């Protein structure tokens, strides 16, 4: 009984903290920037398929439509946008001088990091689901490919999994934001790893390069050079190491 009660309390606490983080996002332009940012992927895909439908209608299939949109999102846009919202969530506390207030109330610094991570997880999943929904919606504005349930389920799973895998890379962006307290280094890092991923994805090294892995693992069909456990280990290790760095750095930092 006691265990159930304490678990209930923990769940209530998470929702309470989450509610606080959500209040902070009211009227925030970053919410719209992130929605617009990820929306570029299905929009580009849509424009491409509109033209393809006119020129090579035989090439237009529902599977290709989803796959191409997914490539735009995962390989080009996701790392940058998710890095941007992570930087916003952490840097704004320094830039708006709100950190002093947050850290002089009875909340531990580790709790602050964890709460922000929970918010980012939900934000990322929301953006992935929005992109998935927007891709479907755009199909009904001039393309009209017949949707097949099996394909829809397959890509729903891929979008969701991509969100979860991208989340594992978030603590590194958070760490850079904590140390630099600015957008420049975080965005610079996002651009560098995105370019590296684009170059490396089609080589065997992409299978162990964490920033190439959301794309590779979400659509994994058993065709890797290395055992897939190496890829999973690489991603998990990146998550644990960077989250630990965040917690250690933030706990030791002087708030000047």
């Amino acid at each position, binding site marked *: 009984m006691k265990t159930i009660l304490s678990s209930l309390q923990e769940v209530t606490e998470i929702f309470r903290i989450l509610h606080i983080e959500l209040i902070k996002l009211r*009227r925030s*332009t970053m919410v719209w920037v992130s929605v617009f940012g990820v929306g570029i992927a299905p929009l580009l895909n849509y424009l491409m398929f509109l033209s393809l439908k006119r020129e090579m209608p035989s090439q237009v299939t529902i599977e290709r439509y989803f796959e191409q949109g997914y490539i735009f999102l995962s390989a080009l846009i996701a790392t940058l946008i998710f890095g941007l919202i992570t930087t916003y969530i952490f840097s704004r506390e320094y830039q708006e001088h709100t950190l002093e207030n947050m*850290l002089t109330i009875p909340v531990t610094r580790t709790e602050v990091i964890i709460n922000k991570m929970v918010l980012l997880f939900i934000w990322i999943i929301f953006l992935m689901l929005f992109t998935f929904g927007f891709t479907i919606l755009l199909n009904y504005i001039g393309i009209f490919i017949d949707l097949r349930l099996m394909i829809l389920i397959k890509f729903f799973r891929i979008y969701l999994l991509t969100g979860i895998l991208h989340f594992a890379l978030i603590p590194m962006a958070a760490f850079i934001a904590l140390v630099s307290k600015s957008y420049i280094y975080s965005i610079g890092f996002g651009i560098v790893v995105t370019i590296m991923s684009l170059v490396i994805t089609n080589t065997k090294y992409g299978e162990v390069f964490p920033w190439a892995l959301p794309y590779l693992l979400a659509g994994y069909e058993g065709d890797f050079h290395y055992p897939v456990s190496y890829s999973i280990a690489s991603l998990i290790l990146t998550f644990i190491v960077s989250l630990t760095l965040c917690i250690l750095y933030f706990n030791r930092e*002087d708030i000047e």
Partner: protein
Amino acid sequence: MCAIIKTKNLTKYFGNIKVVDKVSLTVKRGDIYGFLGRNGAGKTTTIKMLLGLINPTKGEIEVFGEDLSKSKRKILERVGYTPEFSGFYSNLTGAENLKINTRLLGVQKKDIIEEVLNIVGIWDERNKLLKKYSLGMKQRLSIARSILHNPELLILDEPTNALDPIGIKEVRRLIKSLAEKRKITVFISSHILTEVQQLANTIGIIHRGRLLEEISLDELRRKNRRYIEVQVNNDGSASMILEKKLGIYDYEVHEEGNIRIYSHHDKISEVNKVLIKSGIDVIKLGISEGNLEDYFIKLTGGDGDF
């Protein structure tokens, strides 16, 4: 009186620079403690160490009798803090900003936001976005935020910085009334001597990271009272004459031959006549004005600027 804050040899280095140097201060329950020092004297760093925002290089901090490094969370539940530069979420309204704190602090009391906004006088501005708040309004909101959980200790870092004279007066009145009505112990830092003088009952003077003096305002005033200064050839006889012939008892022999009379300022000529008639040589006679500013300048080695 038990100590609410007690530090022992509190020291902080930033790199090789010593910013706070062996500060040992004591704030008693019910005090309004004025922490006075020039810009860059080490006030904010000391305050941030008291709140656990900056880790001390050396030294100990006790708040409410508990070691800050061990019981930080428990201590912070009883402390309110108004930083020098009050940070708020600019995309939110004043009330929404406070709502975040009530949630974080777990304040259950209904209408607490209305109550504190009324205390600081900005209830009517509650639905304005923070980006539309003036500096003075932000400072009041910051004070409102710091009293949401009814703290026993309120720490304010230069709360009147950049405010206009009316704003300064209002904030000062607000702090005084909080200390009196809510029985809050107040620790307030400032670089303005007159401000500390008007608010505090105990003053700690920090200069180049070192706490030069910790003194009650009464003691400070006593040290700096207006007085008749008489330089005579025989202070013993002169003292007896002052007492017996003029009924003056509120005086002290400051140095050899130098007497300071703290009362009877209107009887300066009579003092002169009586002493001369009694055969005492009066070498110097005049009224001296105690000046706190001069006192602090002297204390800080001549380069103070309060």
